[in-house]
C-alpha cells in the first residue's frame, strides 16, 4: 500500500486539478485507505456539513421553488441535461437519442423531437421536468405510470417505445406523430362539426376504455392531450400518468394545481380517490368545448374554477348553440354529472353510445339513434317490443342470479344501479336446492311425528301438499323480489313503485302454480291433491309475495350498489 496523501494533494484532488492518471490512483487509494478517506472528508467539509447538507437540500413539505417561478430556460435545460452529440444538427444527446429540437414544454415535462439512430426514425421524447426529477416520489410515480401506459395497446392511445426511469432525467420515448392537438384545432376553428365531435369523442372514449381496462386512469384528459393525426381520421390520447407524477409534488405538497384545472372532475377537485369515471367527466368537458367553443367551467382564477366544477352547473349548451340536437346535449350533461354514479358506467359505454349516434348521423334513415334519453323517465320511450325483451332479460338475469338490470340498454338502466343480489337469492337456487332440503326436513318431521304419534296422521296432510305450498311460497318470495327490482328499475316515482310491483305479481301467479305443481310432482306425484288446496296456495303466494316485495323494495333502495368496474386508485 502506498503511503498517505498529503493534504495539498487532497485539496488539489477536490478541486479536480489532478492529472487523469493520478486521479484514478487517488480513487483507488481512497477506496482502501481509511486514513486518507477521513482526511478528505475533513478537508472538504463533508464531515462537518454532511447532515446539514442533506437537511437543507432535501425537499420538505413546503418545497423550495415558488410555484410558477420555476421558469426554466431551454438553454439551461440543454446544458444541464443533454450530453454532447457528434451529429452536427443535434442539440445534444439524451439516452442515446439525438435531440433535434424542443417541441413543447408543460408543467411536468419537456417534449423533444429526436432521432433514433438504431432504428433510423424520428421519435418524440417526453422528459420529466427537472424540478420534478429531483423528487424521488415524482420519479417513482413517473416510472410506474409510464410503464403502465406502455402496457396499453390501443389505436387511440399513444404507443410508448421505451421508458427510461433512471438516470438524472427520467424520460419516455414515443412515436412522433404528425398533426396537431385538439387544443390547437379549437383555437384555430372555434367550434367543430357534430360528426367530428362524435368521432373524436368516440375514439378518445375507446382509448380511455383500453387504459381503464389496465387499471390506468388518465387524470388529465383535455384538448391539449388529444392529438389529431394528419391525413388519417384518428384521435390519439397522450400524456398518460404524467399528470399523476406532478400531482404528488404540486398538489399535495404545495396546495396548487399543476396546469389548468378546467377539465378536472369534481372528485379530483376535492382531492378524493378517483376511478375511471373521473376521466369521463373530463371527456364531457372536452365534448362541451368542441361543441360550444368554451370549456364549461372557465373562470379567471384557479380557485374559482375549482369551485364552479364542484358546485355549479355549466351554462346549458342549447342556450349557447341552439342548433345542437337535444340528444347530444343530454349525453354531455350526463357525462358532466357531479355525482359519478350518474355518469355513464364506463368509457366503453360512452364509446358505444357515441358510435351509435355517429352512425345515426351518417345514415339517419337506416340507423336509429341509440336509445338515450337522460336515463330517468325512460318508460315513455319504451316500445312494447323493448319491454318484452327487457322482461325476458330480466327473468334470465334472475335465474342466473345476476343483477336484474344487467345487459339492459344504457338509457333505461336505473340510477343508481340496482343492488346485485347474492346468489342464494336467485330463483334457480330457491327452486332446486331449498326444496330438496325442505323435502328432507319435512320427511324427517313426518317420520318423527309418526314415531312419536303426537299428531294424528290425517291432520298432518300429505308430504306433497305441504310441499306444493312451500314451493309456491318460495316462488312467490323470489318473484316478489324480482318485482321489486323491476319496479325500482323502471318506475321513476318512488310512490308508484309498490303499486307497480303488485301489478307485476299478478301474471306470474299462473306460472308459479304450474311450477309448484311440477315440483310437487317431481317429489311425490300426487297431482290430484293439489287443486283442492288452491285457496291455501293463493293465500301463501300473496302473503309471501307481498311481504318480500315490501321488504326488498326497502332493501334495494337502501343499498345503492357500486358498479363492478370501479377502479379506485391508491390515494
Amino acid at each position, binding site marked *: 500500500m502506498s503511503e498517505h496523501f498529503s493534504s495539498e494533494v487532497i485539496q488539489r*484532488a*477536490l478541486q479536480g486539478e489532478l492529472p487523469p492518471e493520478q486521479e484514478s490512483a487517488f480513487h483507488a487509494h*481512497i477506496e482502501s485507505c481509511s486514513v486518507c478517506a477521513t482526511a*478528505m*472528508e475533513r*478537508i472538504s467539509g463533508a464531515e462537518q456539513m454532511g447532515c446539514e447538507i442533506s437537511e437543507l437540500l432535501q425537499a420538505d413539505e413546503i418545497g*423550495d421553488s415558488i410555484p410558477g417561478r420555476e421558469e426554466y430556460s431551454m438553454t439551461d435545460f440543454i446544458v444541464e441535461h443533454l450530453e454532447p452529440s457528434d451529429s452536427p444538427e443535434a442539440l445534444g444527446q439524451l439516452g442515446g437519442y439525438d435531440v433535434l429540437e424542443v417541441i413543447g414544454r408543460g408543467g411536468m415535462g419537456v417534449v423533444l423531437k429526436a432521432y433514433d439512430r438504431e432504428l433510423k426514425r424520428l421519435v418524440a421524447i417526453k422528459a420529466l421536468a427537472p424540478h420534478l426529477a429531483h423528487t424521488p416520489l415524482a420519479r417513482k410515480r413517473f416510472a410506474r405510470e409510464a410503464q403502465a401506459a406502455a402496457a396499453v395497446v390501443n389505436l387511440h392511445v399513444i404507443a410508448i417505445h421505451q421508458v427510461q426511469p433512471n438516470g*438524472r432525467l427520467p424520460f419516455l420515448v414515443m412515436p412522433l406523430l404528425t398533426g396537431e392537438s385538439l387544443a390547437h384545432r379549437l383555437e384555430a376553428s372555434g367550434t367543430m362539426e357534430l360528426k367530428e365531435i362524435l368521432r373524436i369523442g368516440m375514439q378518445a372514449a375507446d382509448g380511455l376504455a383500453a387504459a381503464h381496462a389496465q387499471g390506468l386512469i388518465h387524470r388529465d384528459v383535455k384538448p391539449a392531450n388529444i392529438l389529431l393525426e394528419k391525413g388519417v381520421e384518428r384521435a390519439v390520447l397522450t400524456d398518460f400518468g404524467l399528470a399523476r407524477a406532478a400531482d404528488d409534488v404540486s398538489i399535495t405538497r404545495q*396546495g396548487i394545481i399543476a396546469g389548468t384545472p378546467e377539465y378536472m372532475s369534481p372528485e379530483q377537485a376535492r382531492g378524493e380517490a378517483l376511478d375511471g369515471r373521473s376521466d369521463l367527466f373530463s371527456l364531457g368537458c372536452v365534448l362541451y368545448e368542441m361543441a360550444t367553443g368554451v370549456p364549461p367551467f372557465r373562470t379567471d382564477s384557479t380557485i374559482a374554477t375549482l369551485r364552479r366544477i364542484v358546485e355549479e352547473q355549466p351554462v346549458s349548451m342549447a342556450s349557447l348553440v341552439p342548433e345542437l340536437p337535444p340528444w347530444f346535449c343530454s349525453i354531455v350533461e350526463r357525462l358532466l354529472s357531479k355525482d359519478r354514479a350518474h355518469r355513464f358506467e364506463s368509457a366503453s359505454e360512452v364509446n358505444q353510445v357515441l358510435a351509435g349516434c355517429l352512425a345515426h348521423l351518417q345514415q339517419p334513415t337506416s340507423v336509429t339513434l341509440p336509445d338515450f334519453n337522460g336515463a330517468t323517465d325512460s318508460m315513455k320511450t319504451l316500445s312494447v317490443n323493448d319491454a318484452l325483451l327487457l322482461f325476458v332479460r330480466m327473468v334470465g338475469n334472475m335465474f342466473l342470479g345476476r343483477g336484474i338490470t344487467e345487459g339492459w340498454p344504457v338509457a333505461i338502466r336505473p340510477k343508481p344501479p340496482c343492488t346485485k343480489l347474492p346468489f342464494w337469492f336467485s330463483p334457480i337456487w330457491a327452486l332446486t336446492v331449498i326444496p330438496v332440503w325442505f323435502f328432507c326436513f319435512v320427511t324427517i318431521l313426518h317420520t318423527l311425528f309418526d314415531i312419536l304419534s303426537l299428531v294424528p296422521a290425517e291432520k298432518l296432510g300429505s308430504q306433497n301438499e305441504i310441499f306444493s305450498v312451500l314451493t309456491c311460497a318460495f316462488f312467490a318470495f323470489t318473484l316478489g323480489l324480482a318485482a321489486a327490482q323491476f319496479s325500482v328499475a323502471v318506475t321513476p316515482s318512488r310512490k308508484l313503485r309498490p303499486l307497480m310491483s303488485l301489478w307485476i305479481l299478478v301474471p306470474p301467479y299462473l306460472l308459479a302454480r304450474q311450477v309448484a305443481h311440477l315440483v310437487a310432482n317431481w317429489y311425490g306425484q300426487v297431482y290430484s291433491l293439489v287443486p283442492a288446496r288452491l285457496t291455501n296456495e293463493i293465500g301463501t303466494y300473496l302473503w309471501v309475495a307481498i311481504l318480500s316485495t315490501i321488504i326488498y323494495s326497502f332493501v334495494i333502495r337502501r343499498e345503492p350498489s357500486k358498479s363492478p368496474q370501479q377502479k379506485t386508485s391508491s390515494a
Partner: protein
Amino acid sequence: MTTTPTTRTSLLLKLRDPRDHEAWVEFVILYEPVIYRMLRKFGLQDADALEVLQELLLAVSRSVDRWTPGQEFGSFRGWLRRVTRNLVVNWVRRRKRQLVTTSLDLDALLIEGESIEGDESRQFDSEVHRSLFHRASDQVRIEVQLQTWQAFWEVAVSGREVNEVAVRLGLTAGAVRVAKCRVIARLRDAVDKLKEST
C-alpha cells in the same frame, strides 16, 4: 458555517437606488424563497402566500429607502421579518372582514409575534441559510459533471450507501466518495461567495 452573516449593508444601499435592477434581482432571488417559506410556515395556503409575497415585494420596494442601517428597527432581516408578519396579520384581518374563513388564528399570530420573537428570527435565519444553499447547489450542479452530481446527491442527500451508488452509476466506490467530497467542497465555496456578495 452555522452562523449566518447579516445582510451586507451594501446590497441594501444598492436596493435603495431604484435604477439598480441587478441588486433588486439579487434580493428577489435570495429572499423570495425565504419569505415564501416563512409565509407557508405561518400556515398560509399556497395561493395566499403568493398574494402576500407579491404585496411584500411591493412594500419593500416602496419603503426600503426609509430604512437606514443601525436605527431602532435593528437589522434588515429583523425589519423584513416584521414587515412580513404585519402583512400576514393585515391579510387575515381583511379576510375576516370579507367573512372568508381562514385556518389562521389572528390572536395566535399577534401573541406569538410578541412571545417567540427569538424563535421566529432563528427560523428566518435558517431559511436564509437554506435559500443560500439552494442557490449554491443550482450553480454547482451546472458546473460539475452529471455523474459527479449524481454521486453526491445519492450519497449525501438521499443517504444511500456508497457501494450501492457506485454499482448503480458504474463507478468505483472511491470515485463516488471523491465525487461527494468534491461537490461538498464546491458547495461550501459557493455558499461563502454568495454570502460575500449579498
